[in-house]
């Protein structure tokens, strides 16, 4: 089967052997630091550990660039590099290898992962400098890079799943990096277990996909073959519904887990318990976007499932909106960014839902830049504030940390969607695609979310950097700009956040949508476009400009409100709160009590079941076992009693009879020997009776 597939594709596949090093290098780094790190750090010092750790993703980046350029050189239809390392699982009609592939989509991903990842590694060497378990941190970080690269480079679903859970593991380890805090430890477990719920969906989808393809005659889990044979499943039905719809639905369950969408987003805010660079790398730039990547990767299936598309778009919109509302009320700077991440992911899913995969991935990229920058900026602040995260205790920081402020501001403008910053291009494109594909409600909700985004992001800017400092004297005294190792990555990312938008200037703005074109071979599937407006409508419509203006306007409005509230103070937040009614505000501030709801229902339910089954096991199942033993013992007791009473009783009985008959027996006579003899006689008589009868 495998071979057959190969021959079928020989034309398009370019086999190279250097790809494996992209994920392998970070793995090596992780192994070195994981096993030897403790000694290296003791003997050679933290810088060596840091150097090793940073070298790996950066070298990876170089290779990624090389791969990218090689792809550029190829004809659009042939853009697929494959590096098959060794056969992995070959059982029956299942044949998957440990093989890495690069196509336009994954090329973008690896550039982000290694590039942004590398920067964050550098940043961390300064940020984590006081940490005694320095080596452990970087081992995890490298391991994560490896897992993430496996996720995006794996050429089949199973290998992708390895990365998929691998990043989950690293996220677990890094969230709980300071595990001696109970809260951090449980935040880690929560993240992993919630992700497992998603993985359940992912696995079931994989199985269903495999066997449906097998029924169609092409059992495979290789992406390129799935892309080739997916059409066979067009009218395939499973459990009374479209197989593809079911597969994509289950896949989406997996995506909601990884990418923190409703209803499985609850782990992400808690995940902020981890060190800030982790939040930047894993919970903003890369891991959480895995769901988006996966949908883009399997876009051929999602194209065939309009229902799923609608669901995804709606869920995305809802998530974007709800997360934004919560974001407006938080005071912990990292929590604000966390909810903003959830919200932005919602935007990406809107794009995925309406079939604008390229756009979604584009937003993924820009978001990676500005959100990483924001997180690192907040990290820089927190670093300066001695791990104070409450914005109410900050303020006026711009005079102490200008670089941090500048970069943070640029990224905020980007995320707020102000032209010509990157966020404008990516987000506006999403809104347009949602609108133009007819999802008007989704579009409306998204616009509101965009407005709120602008609001709460600038709220954070004003509260943190503007106005008078609300920090206590001691902290104020030590305030300082962060070292270069931290500021340089900030600047790079800020630059990217500012300019990357020009990679995909829409035709409406006289651009050539280069990015869309780059991804087209992966995410456009000829006539399967059951819906959606991929291709980014080459025909420009007036309405597009209107909407563009509108979105900029609402963003501006959001900024203005934030300014009025937290800068000039012409508007009083608390008054607004009253206006909305305190109850509503409190509900939002407490994240709609979703965590509490889960605790009350799912967790409590499971715990109840475990208790019940444990009770059942010890009392019923084992009870029956011991009971049967007890019964045997009772029988033997019974025999003893029979021996004692019945036999002797029989003796007496007969004796009575005989005395009645009037023998010379004066009083009842008994004796054990007689009893024994009675048994003999009774037995003999019994046999005779039985025979005659």
């Amino acid at each position, binding site marked *: 089967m495998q071979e057959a597939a190969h021959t079928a594709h020989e034309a398009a596949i370019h086999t190279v052997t250097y790809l494996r090093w992209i994920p392998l290098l970070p793995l090596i780094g992780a192994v070195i630091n994981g096993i030897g790190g403790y000694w290296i750090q003791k003997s050679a010092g933290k810088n060596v550990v840091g150097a090793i750790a940073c070298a790996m993703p950066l070298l990876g980046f170089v290779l990624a660039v090389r791969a990218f350029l090689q792809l550029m050189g190829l004809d659009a239809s042939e853009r697929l590099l494959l590096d098959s390392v060794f056969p992995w699982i070959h059982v029956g009609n299942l044949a998957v290898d440990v093989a890495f592939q690069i196509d336009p989509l994954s090329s973008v991903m690896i550039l982000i992962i290694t590039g942004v990842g590398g920067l964050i590694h550098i940043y961390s060497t300064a940020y984590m400098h006081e940490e005694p378990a320095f080596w452990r941190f970087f081992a995890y970080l490298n391991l994560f890079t490896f897992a993430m690269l496996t996720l995006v480079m794996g050429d089949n679903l199973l290998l992708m799943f390895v990365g998929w859970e691998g990043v989950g593991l690293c996220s677990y380890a890094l969230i709980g990096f300071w595990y001696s805090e109970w809260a951090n430890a449980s935040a880690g477990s929560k993240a992993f277990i919630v992700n497992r719920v998603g993985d359940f969906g992912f696995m079931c989808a994989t199985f269903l996909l495999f066997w449906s393809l097998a029924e169609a005659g092409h059992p495979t889990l290789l992406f390129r073959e799935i892309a080739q044979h997916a059409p066979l499943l067009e009218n395939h039905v499973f459990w009374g519904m479209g197989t593809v719809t079911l597969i994509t639905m289950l896949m989406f369950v997996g995506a909601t887990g990884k990418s923190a969408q409703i209803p499985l987003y609850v782990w992400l805010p808690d995940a902020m318990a981890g060190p800030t660079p982790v939040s930047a790398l894993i919970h903003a730039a890369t891991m959480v976007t895995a769901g988006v990547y996966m949908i883009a990767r399997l876009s051929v299936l999602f194209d065939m499932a309009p229902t799923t598309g609608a669901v995804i778009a709606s869920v995305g919109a809802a998530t974007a909106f709800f997360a934004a509302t919560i974001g407006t009320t938080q005071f912990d700077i990292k929590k604000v960014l966390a909810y903003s991440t959830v919200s932005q992911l919602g935007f990406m899913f809107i794009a995925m839902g309406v079939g604008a995969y390229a756009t979604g991935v584009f937003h993924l990229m820009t978001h990676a830049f500005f959100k990483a920058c924001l997180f690192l900026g907040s990290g820089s602040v927190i670093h300066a504030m001695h791990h104070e995260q409450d914005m109410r205790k900050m303020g006026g920081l711009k005079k102490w940390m200008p670089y941090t402020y500048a970069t943070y501001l640029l990224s905020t403008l980007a995320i707020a969607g102000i032209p010509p910053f990157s966020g404008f291009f990516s987000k506006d494109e999403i809104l347009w695609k949602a609108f133009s594909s007819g999802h008007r409600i989704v579009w409306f909700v998204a616009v509101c979310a965009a407005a709120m985004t602008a609001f709460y992001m600038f709220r954070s800017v004003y509260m943190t950097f503007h106005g008078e400092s609300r920090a206590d004297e001691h902290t104020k005294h030590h305030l300082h700009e962060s070292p270069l190792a931290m500021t340089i990555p900030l600047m790079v990312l800020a630059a990217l956040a500012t300019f990357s938008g020009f990679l995909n200037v829409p035709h409406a703005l006289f651009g050539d949508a280069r990015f869309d074109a780059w991804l087209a071979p992966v995410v456009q599937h000829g006539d399967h476009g059951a819906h959606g407006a991929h291709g980014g409508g080459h025909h420009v419509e007036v309405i597009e400009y209107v909407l563009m203006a509108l979105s900029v306007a609402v963003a501006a409005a959001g900024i203005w409100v934030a300014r009025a509230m937290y800068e000039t103070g012409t508007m009083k937040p608390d008054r607004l709160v009253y206006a909305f009614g305190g109850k509503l505000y409190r509900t939002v501030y407490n994240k709609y009590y979703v965590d509490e709801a889960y605790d009350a229902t799912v967790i409590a339910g499971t715990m109840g079941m475990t208790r019940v089954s444990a009770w059942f096991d010890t009392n019923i199942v084992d009870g029956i076992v011991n009971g049967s033993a007890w019964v045997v013992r009772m029988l*033997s007791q019974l*025999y003893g009693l029979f021996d004692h009473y019945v036999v002797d009783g029989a003796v007496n009985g007969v004796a009575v009879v005989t005395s009645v008959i009037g023998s010379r027996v004066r009083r009842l006579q008994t004796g*054990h020997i007689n009893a*024994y003899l009675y048994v003999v006689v009774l*037995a*003999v008589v019994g046999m*005779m009776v039985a*025979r005659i009868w």
Partner: protein
Amino acid sequence: MDLGPVESFGFFVPELILGVAVIALIVADLVVRRKDLLGMAALATVAVSLIAVVATLPDKGDAYLFNRMIVHDQFSLFFKIVFSLATFATVWMSLDSREVQRVSQGEYYALLLASTLGMYFMATATNLLMAYLALEFVSLTSYVLTGTIRHNRRSGEASLKYLIYGGVASGTMIYGMSWIFGLTGSMDYAGINTALAAGQEDSLALFVAVVLTLAGFGYKIAAVPFHMWAPDVYTGAPIPITAFLSVGSKAAGFALLLRFFFPALSKLGDGGQWQVIGGVEWPQIILVLSVVSMTVGNLAALQQDNIKRLLAYSSVAHAGYMLMGLVVLSDEGLRSVLFYIMVYYLMNIGAFAIVMLVANSTGREDFASFRGLAWRGGAVPAVAMAIFLFSLAGIPPLAGFVGKFYLFAAIIRSEFYALALIGALNSVVSLYYYARIVRTMFLDQPQGDEGVVSLDWSTGGLVAALTVGTVVFGVYWIPVINLADRSVRFFLG
């Protein structure tokens, strides 16, 4: 062959040896001063008679002796070997037993040998009269041997119960025999068989007669419901005698039973398959007895606190297992019974030998006397005991398992699956009480009041021999099975 008095003596050597020895011992008891020699003499005699028996194994052709009173055939030879071995072990044990030291050696050993002689006759009798005489011979001597310890409540009481029970049982038996005689007009098994084959008897009367007779046999093999004497007698008798009764006279009972039911009451068809004649459906009776015996025996054993009493009930249960082999009416079944008897001899005597060892040094026979045996110097006896007990429970790779295996094989071949299931489940139950002893010996820690158990060379030798037998025959039992195979041959004239 049908030999008269004179020619018969050629086949009569072992019996003669024993007979002479009995008289010699009684006489010697009066003259010899060193009584301990008498035991040795008895041991030697048994050994010699055993050799004499084995010497006749090579087939010189079977024959009726003394005008069809007794018979000389492979079947009887097998049992003679078992009896001799049992007596041999018993005498050996007696030499080491504390209890037996106190009784007058001469008559004790004389009675023991006499009892053995009686068993020989039980195995060879082919005539109702002879059968009765042999049975009584063994019984009478056993009564005395049970009560041999003077001024001992338990011993005396046991012998009295044994006597009365035995008297009634044998009385019932001969009353039944009288009817058989009346209905078939013959005392001779062959004669009975031909009469039945002709078959004009009233089968109901015959059935009644057979049942009455069964009372006598059943009491000898201690099968439920004729077992009630066994626990008391086993507990009361001196340990070597208990061992002797539990193996020797049980085996003798089986010899009598088999010869009565097979050559006399059944007809050998082709392929070693027997048929019931005269319309006496005795296999059903045996089936019931077998099931009841093993079940009651095991259940009762579960709650015993006295090891001897426990082993008594276990021997009742084992009678039940062996009876399974009769139900299927085939040479294969018989073979498995014979095999089991041989194996049962090894493990049961062994178990009693250990009980005696403990009793010698502690003077007790209850569970407490075994507590932590392995941890107070008695590791070797404890291990041996464990081997015997697990063998009794039928766990591979021990001889007891092989015995059960052949029994089950025989009945499953004839598709008595339910019976097989009952038997198997019974052996699971039995493991529980055997394991109780093992647990007391190994898993419990001694509390200090148990006294030390020391293994002397002579008992050690016996135990070692039996242990080796139990283990070796559990792994390679061809010699035994061959012996059993060739011994399933009655002389039918």
